[in-house]
């Protein structure tokens, strides 16, 4: 029951609201600059510079995240959840999350993680960011295979020649 449990536990509005949300909500949220900035700031906090892994910023992970969740094959409930989760984080932090200091962001995210909603949301952001960093560079992140190199590994051969996102066979 994995996914349903995640949505029920995760939703602040309840499952039915998530499922009945109209596509226009998604459009509004996804084109909101603020939502993008918030998610990007969270990714940069999870994957900062001066870590053994390349930073979120240098790997352009935000582009990957939006390209992935806005693709027509992506689960629309999770898409909405990700967008709404960013809004909720901003609401909790009175709209200033992006401009908080490092320590304030740490406090805000750990506090958010204490709610089941926030915990699910942060897990989703973590997964999407790792997917960006550690997938084939063809997907636009993992530039020069830097994330693979940091882990002393590399993808298998043959590498993909095209992104599955555009594969309509």
């Amino acid at each position, binding site marked *: *029951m*994995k*996914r*349903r449990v995640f949505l029920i536990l995760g939703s602040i509005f309840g499952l039915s609201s998530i499922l009945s949300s109209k596509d226009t909500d998604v459009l509004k949220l996804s084109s909101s600059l603020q939502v993008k900035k918030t998610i990007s700031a969270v990714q940069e*906090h*999870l*994957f*900062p510079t*001066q*870590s*053994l*892994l390349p930073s979120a910023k240098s790997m352009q992970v935000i582009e990957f995240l939006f390209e992935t969740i806005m693709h027509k*094959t992506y689960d629309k409930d999770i898409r909405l959840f990700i967008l709404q989760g960013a809004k909720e984080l901003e609401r909790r932090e009175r709209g200033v999350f992006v401009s908080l200091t490092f320590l304030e962001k*740490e406090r805000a*995210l750990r506090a958010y*993680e204490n709610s089941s909603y926030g*915990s699910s949301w*942060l*897990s989703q952001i*973590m*997964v999407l960011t*790792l*997917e960006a960093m*550690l*997938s*084939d560079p*063809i*997907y636009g992140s993992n530039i020069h295979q830097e994330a*693979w190199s*940091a*882990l*002393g*590994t590399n*993808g*298998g*051969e*043959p*590498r*993909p*020649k095209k992104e*599955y996102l555009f*594969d309509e*066979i």
Partner: protein
Amino acid sequence: MKYDVIVVGSGVGGAGVAYSLCKAGYKVALLEKGKLIKREEFSKDELAYVRRDIVTPNPFEEYHTIEERVDGAWVSTSTYASGWSFWNGNIVGGSSTFMSGMFHRMHPDDFRLKSKYGKIKGANVEDWAISYEELEPYYTLAEELVGITGRANTHRFSPPRSRTYFSQAPTKENEVVKLFDKSCKDLGVTSLVTARAILSKDRGTRKGCYYSNFCGSYGCSSGAKGSAMEALIKPALATGNLTLMSNTYVKKLLCNTETEVESVLVLNTITKEEKQLFAKVFVVAAQAHESARLLLNSANKYYPDGLANSSGELGKNLLFSGGGYGYGELHKDALQQISFASLMQKGLFINRSILDWYFVEHWWKGKFKGGLVEFMFEHQNIISRAVRSTKSEHKLLWGKALGEHLVSKFTKSKNVRFEVFTDWLPHSNCFISLDKTHKDTYGMPVGKLRIEAHPQDVKVGEYLAKKCEAVLEEMGATNIRSVINALPPPNLIAGGCRFGTNPKTSVLNKYCQTHDIENLFVSDASFMPTGGSTPYSWTIYANALRVGEHIVKQLRKRS
């Protein structure tokens, strides 16, 4: 046009039959709902194949529902809601395209489990309608055609072989096997080389394995893996007798009389065009749960409860594989026999299994059917391994701490994994029926799988897992864990159309022909009344070749 034979499903079960018939000169149409992906199109794109499942249907379009017991009541969840599904690879070649190719024959006593152990409380165990000796020639034929490589074992529980050798040597092994073999020896356990459906050397148009490091869940770019496509469909196409139709979804089988299937109703999944296709004989091999679903969806006025279901047994006694898995970490400082660099060498296999506990006679627990255990490296998927390592005490790791943790995980240790395979005892609360409310995107009722394990399965799994943990401990592994529970793995499915001699208690006869309808066969793992304690593919290949040969004989008799 009327084909000699129409086969539904291009996996191991369908390809085995199609191959035999095409070789014998019969015209066969092989219908596959998935697309065709050519060998040269496969890549090791983890995001596509593992994270986004591009080779299974979109879960919102095609799905099933799963019924589990929750607080004493049966609760049904659709697979699009749970993310837990039994799709395993829906392209030409089916799931075998993505298998790891660890191949095992069943033991002769697996064919007569009821005779050996008697009735087990709460289970519907029946002996098979054939013996191991009847299937053995086809195991050998499959070994040759598929290109199964290995070493003939002489363990007391190894199934007898009519051929003492394998035609190719086993695939290459990582040096960790020295440590594994020594640890087993020290514990008085026999370690065996696992046969693999993987060529170690070039053969015809198929190249030998190049140890790509990403095998299970990925298509093979060399043709070394003995998938249905590489092993049987390509040779069948070469006869000129096979018409392979991808993107062809079979909605139902149609009859004009009680005794004969006349045609199949198919839908082109791209153009959405529907048409009927005609043949003399029909073979269903859509993977066990979907084969039963297709026959249930083909109910008609002669068979209102599902085609060829006069016994009422269609969909019943669904089998999975009991057991579970476990793993341990090997760190540099614990290694003595081998260097850390050789442990970390990428691509080479472990290829080791243990049969010592296949049949157990315990001084306290008594006599019972145990199972097989298989040792391997953890799948090397980079994203999945990283994602699994992001939690520490239920909190997410992030920042510098995450960086240090991941680098250490990936560069300072390697996980050895074991998989436990035990019988999934057949019983009355594990079956497939049609869901009354849910339909797939093509308008057909989806399958509803009621899943529950017999309590004995978990006990046996736990018994074997303890033994495996001891092996890992002897090897010097740390953080050893095992996960044994009542949840089945998604990729090993059998039963649902049992074969047997009595038409009142089985759907199929010993040749996997339905008792009710002479020109209808089922050739995937559906026929199995019990599943043995091994992964199924070698048995499915062998049986499908046997069924194919029988259909050839019948067609010859007719003409």
